């Protein structure tokens, strides 16, 4: 554990330092995200004020606002370029620079990604959680459970992206398909709208896919929508997906390493 921290923590720190190396860009990023949030906010405002119902699919307007802001944050944290990093390392052969060092590629990228997650936490998730607590939109237990679930959701997202990124070995134009993937993940993870808005039949399909565990599950926990057994079930679901995706990653990586070591950088 100590070795893990010593060897890989510098990568987390390095990402944060890299973000801070371009403060203007970080500000622009925050600005862009805020605009995005406002657009969605107004859409929902219109929907809630035009209808007669105060509660739509079990969501009050306030809950919907919480959902929007958090889903933006979580979506950014998950969708942060791991795919491009891997694809780039493979295409340009920079993966070799990693293989000559005594480090594990998965862990290196994970910690690099966690650096970005920390950044997102500080600019969106922590301040907003605080605001939500003050406004009594959630409680401390829910926030703690949310953070735990968020971490697992990010792991699921990372492992999924890693598998996807390794497709760069076989597909030249990973950019096009990568954008498709982003859109699909956004839709199916609940990053766009809460999954309860989908028809039952679609929800049944989503239930057996890993995407739900990335965004929808943590935010629903934040909103206190799960309790008792249900809570245990969604956590187990996340754990299960982490295990399955680690398994797939292992298999794909073995093949990929062979590819690197057979074909050359």
């Amino acid at each position, binding site marked *: 554990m100590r*070795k893990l921290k*010593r*060897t890989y*923590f*510098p*990568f987390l*720190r*390095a990402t944060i*330092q*890299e973000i801070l*190396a*371009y403060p203007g860009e970080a500000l622009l990023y925050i600005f862009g995200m805020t605009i995005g949030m406002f657009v969605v906010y107004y859409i929902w405002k219109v929907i809630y004020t035009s209808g007669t119902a105060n509660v739509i699919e079990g969501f009050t307007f306030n809950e919907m606002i919480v959902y929007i802001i958090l889903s933006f944050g979580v979506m950014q944290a998950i969708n942060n370029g791991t795919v491009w990093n891997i694809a780039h390392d493979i295409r340009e*052969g*920079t993966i*070799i*620079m990693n*293989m*000559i*060092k*005594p*480090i*594990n590629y998965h862990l290196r990228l994970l910690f690099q990604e966690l650096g970005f997650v920390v950044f997102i936490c500080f600019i969106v998730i922590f301040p907003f959680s605080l605001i939500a607590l003050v406004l009594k939109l959630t409680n401390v237990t829910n926030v703690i459970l949310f953070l735990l679930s968020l971490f697992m959701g990010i792991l699921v997202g990372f492992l999924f992206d890693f598998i996807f990124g390794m497709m760069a070995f076989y597909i030249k134009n990973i950019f096009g398909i990568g954008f498709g993937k982003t859109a699909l993940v956004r839709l199916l993870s609940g990053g766009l709208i809460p999954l309860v808005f989908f028809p039952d039949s679609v929800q049944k399909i989503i239930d057996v896919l890993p995407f739900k565990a990335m965004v929808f599950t943590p935010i629903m926990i934040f909103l206190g929508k799960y309790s008792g057994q249900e809570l245990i079930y969604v956590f187990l679901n996340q754990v299960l997906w982490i295990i399955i995706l680690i398994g797939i990653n292992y298999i794909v990586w073995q093949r990929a390493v*062979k590819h*690197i*070591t*057979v*074909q*050359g*950088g």
Partner: protein
Amino acid sequence: MIKVNNVSKTFKVYKKDDGLKGAVKGLFKREKEYIEAVKDISFHVKKGEIIGYIGANGAGKSTTIKMMTGVLTPTSGSIEVCGVVPHKNRIENAKRIGVVFGQRTQLWWDLPLKETFTILKEIYEVEDSAFETRYNYLIDLLEIEPFIKQPVRTLSLGQRMRADLAAAMLHSPEILYLDEPTIGLDVMVKERIRKAIKELNQKFQVTVILTTHDMSDIQELATRIMIIEKGEIIYDGAKEAINNQFGNTRQLDLKVESFDESRIKALDFFVKSHDETSNVLVDENSLKIIFDQDKISVAEILSKSMTDFKVLDFSLQDQNIEEIVKKLYQGGIS
């Protein structure tokens, strides 16, 4: 220290036919093609040696280095570096080696250089006190101090390469692999890098495997030369011995006032009568005569040319490694 025994490496590539038709065909049936990048090479390296590993582009240099660093797995044969099989224990092996690829950097692009060094310290688990000594030594040796606080992206190529070398040496590796470390550098920086490599070798007995296309790197640094051509090692021995193996060839350049085809032919015939491998080349307004000085003396050629041509100027060049290598690349000696 390094044992390479009967190592071969075959790459499998898929052959594609040209054009759309070929691309479509490739979807259904792909023809495999095998390329032997390295063929049955063997060599041993002792501690403290500086090996100049040379060969034309695509001769198999990088493939050999990548196998020794554990990035590539040999198709057959065995490699052992300090008792470790690199491709099986990549991480174990990585702790003991330093690598500089001239074309790539191992520094973090957006971070100040100093930060990169700190990160490397953590990755390689270097103790604080050992790091301190080493760090100060390398900073001094490679004159890095002036730009240590700058982000890597703002460094010039020469600064970056010096920093890369320092980064590769921070954890006191026993072996240093340098793949074209002086590529694209100016004379001053080249000199400094060479000086540093030499000092690291003498002071710490670091074993160096150096590939380069700059023969002056080899001339100044290497204690032993290995030449690889089309995947086979065609020369492996001391730098000084290379001349003996490939003949004592020299080159005489003559600047003459006017040309006369028949006289050039006569000169060519004269030189060839002593040394059939010799060559007379015409280049603008000068003549190049390449010959083996064991077979015909400089004086003989000079006196012959003096009588036939009006010689304005002449220069005599020693056969250097560059010439030998050039000839090897052209397939002149095999």
